[in-house]
């Protein structure tokens, strides 16, 4: 403790940091009560990951209710109002409760180890950003129980519907405010860690891709979360304080909300995908036993995707009657994003080219990611074309598109990451056979679920409806069957993770021979509670 005791007089902030450490030691690593006070990046990383796993299953359960209702035409299981709430909260939970916290969990675990830092820059703020998510989640769940039910306006919270809703909408708005604050704090922490705490010799252009993608994602988050907060605050004042920002009756404009919301919303989709790009960029070289092809171009491609994401929001609202010049601008800008994304896909394939490939579970998920995400990217290009979008807007084609980019994109990126780093985190190996079963079941059932939704959309089935015309019955039934297989095969994942932690075979320090980042080359498995108290020298 000598190295840090000197510091105690220097800043009071550091005091508590040390106390929390000492505390954790007194209780020992086995004491679960330390989760309330811990400032250790590994503890907090695990807490984020467990939280998001729980939310993933809650959101997934809602998705299965939705698919059960849509199994056949007519109303069987839920009332239309509840159905609307389910689609809304499913999206909010998956975005803000599952995917974003899971990436933050990985950031907490990996960033300090990958850049040779002892911990995150602001450990106490780190603890706070995690615990803020709990009341937000409770607010979201509890909104189902209040009169009027949970928000039913879709996760986009468009007025006038979101102005008319009951208490549930207020609870949702408050929950998003809290989650936004948590994300902003998390981002500040990550940027400061990455810019200030790198080990000597770890230049920016030597950082692993996961660190790079998170640096850029964190900047995106700080930039757009306040915009979302502004939009929903205006919604709140429209609801309760007599303002008319979006209320046409009072001279406001509901389209304005869409503009502000999507100025946040499009960068948000990159917040959901860029860290997955980072994870994939580390796993593919490992199992190709080759360095990442075009590292620098990967960094620049990520940065240009992030910058372009600020000027394409109009593609979500081609049908609101915007000027033709506006439509053309947003259409071409959106298509432009395919260029840096294409660079990334090219680099990943070029990394595998003539590599000595092996297909362990993390690699399978990454290859699945490559294929399926590219498909989702293509349907995105289709939707970027104005005249096509005008017919496909608000149909199941859109639902198919964003599930193709988000499930094999964000979720498989995360799954790949869990399988890849689990031996490092726990010191034990997962069950490879079970992992492969998980992958193949997911891959097949995912396509059974979402590929038919392209057909439904092209045939004109609108999204966010609990009942539908008879001609859509067959593909909806297929989609629902796929969804149930997909949902239940995720239990294999939980089983695999839990049995790995409890009784997995011993993992080696460098479990994957091709892995090159510091956590594999410099640290044992499992990693000790405190790492890199003295920074390593990176050559």
């Amino acid at each position, binding site marked *: *403790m*000598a*190295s*840090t005791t*000197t*510091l105690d007089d*220097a*800043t009071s*902030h*550091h005091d508590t940091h040390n106390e929390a*450490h000492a505390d954790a*030691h007194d209780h020992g690593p086995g004491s679960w009560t330390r989760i309330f006070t811990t400032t250790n990046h590994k503890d907090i990383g695990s807490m984020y990951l467990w939280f998001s796993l729980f939310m993933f299953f809650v959101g997934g359960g809602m998705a299965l209710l939705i698919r059960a209702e849509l199994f056949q035409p007519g109303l069987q299981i839920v009332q239309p109002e509840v159905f609307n709430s389910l689609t809304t909260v499913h999206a909010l939970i998956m975005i803000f409760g599952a995917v974003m916290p899971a990436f933050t969990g990985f950031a907490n675990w990996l960033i300090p180890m990958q850049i040779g830092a002892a911990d995150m*820059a*602001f450990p106490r703020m780190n603890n706070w950003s995690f615990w803020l998510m709990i009341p937000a989640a409770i607010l979201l769940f509890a909104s189902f129980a209040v009169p009027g039910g949970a928000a039913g306006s879709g996760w986009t919270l468009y007025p006038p519907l979101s102005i008319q809703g009951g208490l549930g909408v207020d609870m949702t708005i408050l929950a998003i405010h809290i989650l936004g604050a948590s994300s*902003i704090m998390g*981002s*500040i922490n990550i*940027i*400061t860690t990455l*810019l*200030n*705490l790198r080990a000597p010799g770890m230049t920016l252009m030597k950082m692993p891709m996961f660190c790079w993608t998170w640096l850029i994602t964190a900047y995106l988050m*700080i*930039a*757009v*979360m*306040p*915009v979302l*907060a*502004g*939009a929903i605050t205006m919604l709140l004042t429209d609801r309760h304080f007599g303002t008319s920002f979006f209320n046409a009756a009072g001279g406001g404009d509901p389209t*304005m909300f869409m*503009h*502000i919301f999507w*100025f946040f919303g499009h960068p948000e989709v990159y917040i959901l995908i860029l860290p997955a790009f980072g994870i994939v960029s580390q796993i593919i070289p490992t199992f190709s036993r080759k360095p990442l092809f075009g590292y620098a171009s990967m960094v620049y491609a990520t940065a240009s995707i992030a910058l372009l994401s600020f000027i394409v929001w109009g593609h979500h609202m081609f049908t609101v*009657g*915007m*000027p*033709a*010049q*506006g439509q053309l601008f947003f259409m071409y800008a959106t298509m432009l994003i395919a260029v840096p994304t294409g660079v990334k896909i090219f680099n990943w394939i070029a990394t595998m080219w003539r590599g000595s490939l092996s297909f362990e579970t993390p690699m399978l998920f990454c290859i699945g990611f490559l294929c399926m995400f590219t498909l989702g990217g293509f349907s995105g290009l289709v939707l970027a074309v104005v005249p096509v979008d005008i017919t496909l807007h608000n149909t199941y084609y859109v639902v198919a598109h964003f599930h193709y980019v988000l499930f094999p994109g964000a979720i498989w990126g995360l799954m790949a990451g869990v399988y890849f780093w689990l031996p490092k985190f726990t010191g034990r190996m997962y069950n490879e056979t079970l992992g492969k079963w998980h992958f193949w079941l997911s891959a097949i059932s995912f396509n059974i679920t979402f590929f038919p939704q392209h057909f439904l959309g092209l045939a004109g089935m609108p999204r966010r409806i609990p009942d539908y015309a008879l001609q859509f019955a067959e593909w909806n039934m297929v989609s629902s069957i796929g969804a149930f297989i997909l949902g239940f095969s995720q239990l294999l994942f939980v089983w695999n993770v839990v049995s790995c932690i409890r009784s997995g075979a011993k993992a080696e320090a460098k479990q994957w021979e091709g892995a090159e980042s510091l956590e594999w080359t*410099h*640290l*044992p498995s499992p*990693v*000790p*509670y*405190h*790492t*890199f*108290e*003295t*920074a*390593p020298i990176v050559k």
Partner: protein
Amino acid sequence: MSMSTNNGASLDSNGMAGALVQAVDRTEVERNNRIMLYKLLLIVPVMLFFCASMVPLYKQICKVLGITATRAMAENTQVDTSRLIAIDFVANLNTNFAWNFVPVEKHVDVNPGAKMTINYRVTNTLPYATTGRAVPSFAPIEGGLYFNKIECFCFSNQTLQAGETRDMPVTFYVAANIPKDIGAIALSYTFFRVNDSEAATNLSAGNLKKAP
């Protein structure tokens, strides 16, 4: 150095001197972190301000770039400027209907294809609320085939309170393919009184009670 014992890979073997150097370094780091924190926090109010200033910003950008034409306001390319059609507006009242009914504009000349709005003014001179209904007719009759009304008050019940005056718009255009031999059209409206029993099926109870 008790904590370093947990530290598998990077044991701190520098001893006390090393620790002191490290401590000084870390205060420096803490300070840098704090500065970074304030810089990053600054982005939050900046983006909130940006969010709030989006409306004037959009207006300004659209003005500078000349982006004004929405689809709804797109230019009408169907106007035949080579000729004018003379339109006369006539107002009639059915017998014993004590309303005052006149066209505000009695005559307009309009290019085929161009959109035009005129008004009729109606006053209820009776001391109680009354309901009337207007029926249009055209002269010549085939002129009516090319006279397209976009908005009109005819065929629907109009209830006026005692002494109330109302301007009722007619928005129309003359079809661009109107034959050359039709140079003028007269549009005439005749207001009929809707009898109370019929009005009762169409109107709210409030209006009914006032009628005798």
